[in-house]
């Protein structure tokens, strides 16, 4: 797999809500190679602080060489990214990691995103929409704290012709409660299902366990602390359920993931 390090120009910065932003970067090689579920490492500072790069899922790419990331401001790195104006150059490494496995023909597909976990699912949705007729149905379920955070994203999915169900913590849009509540009622209809999920750990765990119970295909995109993103530092581990023959006890999320078969994960 080829990946690149390049200085990408910020072509556009959109403020989705108060602390959620979307950056459009010009990096043709990465746009060309990226697959849904893969991520990039951004240098989120002009100097040495913050010191390490920050990982972000590829939100979407375009044939004219653009890569988008969708992020929420949490700390220094994301604050820096939110403060950048178009024209700024950002150092990018990517595309990295193992992305989603595309579903088989004839399956019912369900994408379940919580918070910023929605970012990689949109890229997957775009890819699936190329062959919409291959799938029995494609459902999208989005969860967030409040309606404002979802509206732009909801219409992005709807433009692909995919119906969107929402769940918000404060009940300001869609179901008042967890997005996982929506999954429960879906899983019985029109098998076989392929579930794809990214978001807070408890959400993914619930979906993973539900899918295990009903024997459904399910992939989840996980997060850990990462220093390099390229498999060199061995910092980004999560435990494997069983050691490998050669005695490996951990997955390296940046290489073996970030997307995993949900059945391979020890959900704590």
């Amino acid at each position, binding site marked *: 797999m080829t990946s690149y*390090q390049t200085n990408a120009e910020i072509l556009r910065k959109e403020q989705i809500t108060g602390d959620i932003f979307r950056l459009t970067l010009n990096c043709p090689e990465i746009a060309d190679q990226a697959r849904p579920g893969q991520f990039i490492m951004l240098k989120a500072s002009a100097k040495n602080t*913050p010191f390490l790069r920050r990982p972000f899922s590829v939100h979407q790419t375009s044939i004219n060489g653009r890569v988008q990331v969708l992020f929420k401001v949490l700390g220094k790195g994301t604050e820096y990214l939110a403060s950048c104006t178009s024209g700024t150059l950002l150092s990018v*490494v990517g595309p990295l990691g193992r992305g989603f496995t595309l579903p088989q023909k004839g399956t019912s597909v369900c994408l379940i995103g919580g918070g910023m976990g929605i970012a990689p699912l949109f890229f997957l949705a775009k890819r699936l929409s190329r062959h919409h007729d291959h799938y029995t149905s494609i459902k999208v379920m989005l969860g967030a704290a409040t309606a404002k955070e979802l509206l732009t994203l909801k219409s992005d999915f709807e433009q692909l012709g995919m119906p969107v169900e929402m769940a918000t913590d404060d009940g300001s849009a869609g179901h008042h409660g967890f997005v996982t509540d929506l999954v429960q009622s879906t899983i019985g209809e029109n098998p076989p299902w392929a579930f794809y999920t990214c978001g807070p750990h408890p959400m993914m765990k619930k979906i993973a366990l539900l899918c295990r119970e009903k024997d459904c295909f399910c992939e989840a995109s996980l997060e850990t602390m990462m220093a390099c993103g390229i498999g060199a530092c061995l910092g980004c581990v999560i435990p494997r359920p069983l050691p490998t023959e050669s005695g490996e006890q951990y997955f390296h999320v940046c290489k073996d993931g970030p997307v995993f078969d949900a059945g391979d994960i020890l959900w704590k």
Partner: protein
Amino acid sequence: MEIGKPKLKVQLGSIQLKNPVMTASGTFGYGNEFTNYVNLHHLGGIVVKGISLLPRPGNPPPRIVETEGGMLNAIGLENVGVLAFINDKMPFLKEAGTEVIVNILGDTVDEYAEIANKLNNIKGISAIEVNISCPNVKKGGVAFGADPKMVSAVTRAVKDNTNLPVIMKLSPNVTDITATAMAAEQAGADAVSLINTLMAMAIDSETRRPRLANIIGGLSGPAIKPVALRMVWQVAKTVKIPVIGIGGIMNTEDALEFLIAGATAIEVGTANLINPAITGEIVQGISDYLSAHRLESVQEIIGSLITE
């Protein structure tokens, strides 16, 4: 007067490096992780992730945490073990077009000896670097690198089991690093490299928990550079064998500072994690610096610190 391209070759005991820029163990994987970003052929050498006799799973997460001007790591020496290294990693490395230096570690003196022995006749290995910043399980877990006597014992054990040049990688977690450097030299080391990470920790005041599962980890990055420079300078004045400078090298200027302090070569560590092309850039940067200063060879700056 026009001068040609500056000469970058340096000699580390019996091995010649095409330039003084190498990678530091644990920050460059087994080399193959970096081929997308840097031409390995341009490097002076690659020092691979530390290898033990048997595979090691490493520590539970979190293993890394960012700190001001650097990071802490407690990887726990996760590695594939010496046999898998030879079978799975060496075929790529021996074609990489650069010197391959194998970093080794052990729990006991005998274990170091055994790994050295297993690596001795493997084609494509240029030297062994010995990580002595790990605990001696037979001596209550005191790091080998903390005690000159243990440093001698490990150096001898490795030398007795290999024909390859042996580089002892010194720990900075000591009162007097020149004492362990001299112990390594007297026991027959062909070179010393320094520094390994500084023992450190980080706490989350909200949760009152350590930020690393292992509680303690090793500090690396720009934060340690002044300490590393001081130690390299002291050791270079003390021993006659070549010194390899390591610690917080992020760019060409940093690398030059170590050479000026007396290092014959340098290893770039944490910087690889942030800029995977940095080693190639530093090779070019040193060459440009020499040209700009009208110096013919990198030898002219090694140990050239002006103190009067």
